[in-house]
Every structure is written in C-alpha cells, then in structure tokens.
C-alpha cells in the first residue's frame, strides 16, 4: 500500500468507528425511542459478529494440509478453558497467546 492508501484505510476505520459512536446521539438525541429492529440487532448482532471475527482471524489457516490448524485449535481451546475457569480477560488472552507462541515456535515449527 502507498502512504495515501494507508491513510485512506485508517481513515475508513476512524470514520466507521466515529459513526457508530456519534450516530445514536445525533439520531435519538431528542428523546425518541430507537426502533425495535435496532434494539433487536443490539441484542443479537454482537454474538454473530464476534463469531465472524474468529473466522476472520483463522481465514488463512489451512485445515486440510500441514498441521491441520492444530496450534490454532489447541490455543483456542486453552483460551476458552482459561476463561471459563478464571473469567479474567487478561489471563485468558495472555495464556492463550503464550501457548500459541510456544506451539508455533517449538512444537509445530
């Protein structure tokens, strides 16, 4: 990417983020109640989006060749187990990432 393309890309992320933060105050600032469909999406969209983002993170992993995604699957299982055990975001992320780094550097190089 050129510098200009980088600026446009980051600018798109800034614009999108600011839209999500400022829109409710611009649209509903006078006390109107948000439409039911918006509240419905508020309840159900995040779960689907984070499922999509996990797939996004794994999009370049090849599950049919090489290690069949073993380091990713093991580290995700460990992250999940840590989070269910301790419910501490930092422990889960740190533990899962550290394990993944060991796996890709030493076990599945």
């Amino acid at each position, binding site marked *: 990417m050129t510098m200009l393309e980088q600026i446009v890309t980051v600018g798109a992320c800034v614009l999108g983020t600011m839209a999500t933060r400022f829109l409710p105050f611009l649209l509903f600032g006078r006390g109107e109640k948000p439409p039911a469909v918006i509240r419905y999406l508020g309840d159900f969209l995040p*779960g689907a989006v984070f499922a999509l983002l996990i797939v996004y993170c794994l999009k370049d992993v090849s599950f049919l060749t090489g290690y069949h995604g073993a380091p990713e699957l093991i*580290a995700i299982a460990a992250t999940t187990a840590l989070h269910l055990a301790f419910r501490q975001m930092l422990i889960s992320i740190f533990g899962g990432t550290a394990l993944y780094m060991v796996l890709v550097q030493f076990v599945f190089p």
Partner: protein
Amino acid sequence: MAQNGWGAALRAAFPYTVPIFAGFWFLGLTYGIYMHSAGFSFVYPMLMSMAIFAGSMEFIATSLLLAPFDPLAALLLTLMVNGRHVFYGISMLERYKGLGWKKPFLIFWLCDETFSINYTANTPAGIDRGRFYFCVSILNYLYWVSGATLGGLFGGLLAFDTKGLSFAMTAMFVVIFLEQWKNDPEHRSMFLGFAVAVLALLAFGPQGFMIPAMVGILAGLLALRSRFTGGAA
C-alpha cells in the same frame, strides 16, 4: 468543591479505572508490539490508537494495512465490528445529556470499558457527574494510547521471538465471544454467525468473504427476527 472540582473528580474516577489500566497496557503494548513486528513504525500504533480508539478494530486495521487496498470493505467491517457502540450510545443518551463541551469528548471516548464504568458506576456524592465521566474517559484513553505507543517504540527491544503474537487478536475475540454467549441464551445468533462466515469463506475465499458474510449475517438476523425473539418483536 467548586475550586478543586476537577481534582476531586479525578480522585473519584481513578480507582474505577485501575483494572482498565492493567488491561489496556497489556493489550495496548501487545498491539504496539504486533504493529512493530508487522513492520510499522511506532507512529502507526500511536496515531491509530489516538484516532480510532477501538482496540479490536486497531488489531483488524493492522491486518487491513497488510492486505490489498479496499477502503469500502474497511468501512463496512468497522461498522459491523463497532456496531455495538450504537447501543452504548443509546444507553448513555440520558447520562450524557446537557454536559456541554465535554459531551463530544465523552462520545468519542465511549469504548467498551469506559461504557461499562460510566454506565454502572454511581458518581460519588459531591462529585460533578460530567467531570467524573470525563475523568474516567480520558484516563482510559491515555492508558490505551500510551500502551500502544510504548509497544510500538520498544517492541524492537524484546529479547524473545514474537512469532505467533498475532494470536492475541484471536484470543481477544474468543474471550469477547464467550462473554457474548450469555446475552443470547440459546446462542442462535452465534451459530448463525459461524455458519454464514464459514460458508462465505468456502465460497469466496479468504480475500473476499467478509462483505458477503456481513451481508449474510444481517439478512439472516432480520429474516429470523420473529423466531429469535419468540414472536415478541
């Protein structure tokens, strides 16, 4: 109270933000180190954390910078990833009402963690509400930006191999996903998200699947609305 109102607000706000400090420095440093290992100068994590101020989006933005140029996909992806902010905003409409010049800053700084404090914390007696919100928000902002900048600056000094560090992004989404699990007792939206994402990945490949997947998820959620809400929509 009028004279040292800001000092008192800062002292009241700080304890609420200590856990966020730990979390933001850890994730912010990781983000800065990740950008450094991806070949970017510390200026990138510094400016991106200042301008975007949405942690998960900054990790994704890094991978967008490494992918072919596609600003429309970047914008759509940001709207989907950060769509949850809309609901934070709706929840904060009343609390942030009438706060004058502070209000645009409070809205700009309304990340997950700041929302969770300002939405739930009761402003201590004698403390100006707007100043309390402002102090919580700016502290969290400074934690994040400083962590990301330091990570970018000192990422090169690390004595260990950073290969695999990018998994921090995956782990972060797994954790947020698990936290979302409880919001939908039957987890149908999550299965929908997974199914649509995997199908789109198989059909369109890793470079082009995000937009079809996002469209598919929105369409699926809207089509299944009466089923998901038990007809009580």
